[in-house]
C-alpha cells in the first residue's frame, strides 16, 4: 500500500465508552492510476505502430505526344541501366548502349551489401562526379548520374522496391522506372549464356 499505517495518536479514551471503529473514507487510487497508465501505454504504442511507412515514387509522364525536342537527353557517361530479372538477379551496364556494333559490358549481381548493386551505383556516382568537371565536350558541372530501371517480366515487386530503395540510399536523384526493351532482354540472355559457358 502507498501509505504507512499511522498509529492512532494518543487520543484519550474514556474507559467504558465503546467507540465504533472509524473507517477511512479514502480509497487508495494507486491501482487505478496504474491501470490508467498501462492503458495509455497500450494506446500510445498502437497509434504509432499502425501508421504505415511508405516510399514516394515519381513516374515519368506517360503521354504519347511528347515531342522529341522536349525530351531530356541523357548523357552517355552519366547513364546506367539496371535490369531486374528472375531470382532477384540484377544486370547492369553503364552508358546508353545505343550503338549496336559496340554492345556494353553487362554485369550480373544481386542485392547484397558487398559487391552488390550498391557498390556499382556508388562507383558510378563517384566517376560522374570526377568526370563532370573536366571540361570535356558535353560534360557539365551540374550533371548527375542517371539510372534507368528496367524490370523484366520475371522480376518481382520486391526487386523494384529494393532498387528504388538503393536510389534513396545512395542519393541518386535522377532515375526512372521504364519498360524493358527487346535489346535489353537480349543482353540478359547473352550474359546468361556467357556465364554458363564460363562454368
Amino acid at each position, binding site marked *: 500500500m*502507498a*501509505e*504507512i499505517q*499511522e*498509529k492512532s*495518536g494518543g487520543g484519550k479514551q474514556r474507559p467504558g465508552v465503546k467507540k465504533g471503529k472509524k473507517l477511512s473514507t*479514502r480509497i*487508495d*487510487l*494507486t491501482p*487505478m*492510476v496504474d491501470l*490508467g*497508465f498501462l*492503458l*495509455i501505454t497500450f*494506446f*500510445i504504442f*498502437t*497509434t504509432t505502430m*499502425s*501508421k*504505415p*511507412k*511508405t*516510399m*514516394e*515514387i*515519381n*513516374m*515519368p*509522364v*506517360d503521354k504519347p505526344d511528347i515531342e522529341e525536342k522536349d525530351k531530356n537527353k541523357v548523357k552517355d557517361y552519366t547513364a546506367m541501366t539496371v535490369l*531486374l530479372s528472375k531470382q532477384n538477379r540484377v544486370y547492369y551496364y553503364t552508358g546508353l548502349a545505343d550503338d549496336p556494333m559496340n554492345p556494353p559490358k553487362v554485369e550480373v549481381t544481386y542485392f547484397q*551489401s558487398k559487391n552488390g548493386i*550498391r557498390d556499382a551505383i*556508388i562507383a558510378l556516382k563517384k566517376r560522374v562526379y570526377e568526370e563532370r568537371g573536366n571540361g570535356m565536350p558535353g560534360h557539365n558541372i551540374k550533371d548527375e548520374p542517371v539510372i534507368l530501371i528496367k*524490370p*523484366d*517480366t*520475371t*522480376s*518481382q*515487386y*520486391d*526487386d*523494384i*522496391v*529494393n532498387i*528504388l*530503395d538503393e536510389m*534513396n*540510399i*545512395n*542519393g541518386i536523384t535522377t532515375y526512372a*522506372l521504364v*519498360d524493358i526493351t527487346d535489346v535489353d532482354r537480349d543482353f540478359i540472355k547473352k550474359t546468361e549464356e556467357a556465364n554458363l559457358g564460363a562454368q
Partner: protein
Amino acid sequence: MSKHKLPRKSTHIDMTAMCDVAFLLLTFFMLATKFKPDEPVVVKTPSSTSDIILPDNSILLTVDAKGQVFFDYDNKKAKKALINTVSQEKGLNLTEEEKAAFVNGASFGLPFNQMKQYLSIPPMEQKSYAFTGIPVDTSYVAATNELGYWIQAARTAGQDEGHPPRICIKCDASTVYPKVKDVIKTLTKNNIDRFNLLTSLEAVPEGTDLFKERSKQ
C-alpha cells in the same frame, strides 16, 4: 527541558489528481487511435529505408501475391459520394443500406457486376466473400479499365470533399512485375505520376550517403 517532538505526518499521497491526469490522457489516446482496418488478404510488404508516413485520406490499392487488386479509401465522406456516383453511372441500383455497407466496409476487390451482391450480404459475412480482384486490363483508360474508373471516380469524390487523395500501393513482395506494372500503368495513364508504395521500415546501411545525411541531423 521540553522534549522536541516532530509532528507526525501522513505519508499518504493523494492519488486523485494523478488518476485524473491518467484518465484524461487515456481518453485522448482512445479517441485519437485508429485501429488497423480489416484486410481482405494477407500481404507481406517488402522493406525499405524510407520513413514517409502514409498520408491521411489516401486511396489504398492492395495487390496480393496473385495480382488481385483491392481498393480502399480512407475517407468516409468521399466514399459516400463515390458510391453514389458509381451506383448511378454504372447502373448498379444500390439501396441506401447497400451504400452504407460500402461506406463502412473494408477493402474490397470485385468487378462492378458483383458489387450489389457483395454489399447486400451482412457485414460479418463480407469478410469471407470470395474476392476476385478489381479487373485491370491493358487498355488503361477509365472507360474500360475498372480500376482506372474507381481511381478517377474516387479522386473526383475526394476533390469535392476538399481532400484530394494520394494513392498508395500496398503490394506483396512476391508479386510478379507485369501485375504491378498493370496497376502502375493504370495510374500513369490517368495522369497520376506521383504516388506512394507501402513498405515496412528497415535500418539504413552504414557508410552510405543516406546514412551520413541522417546522422547529420
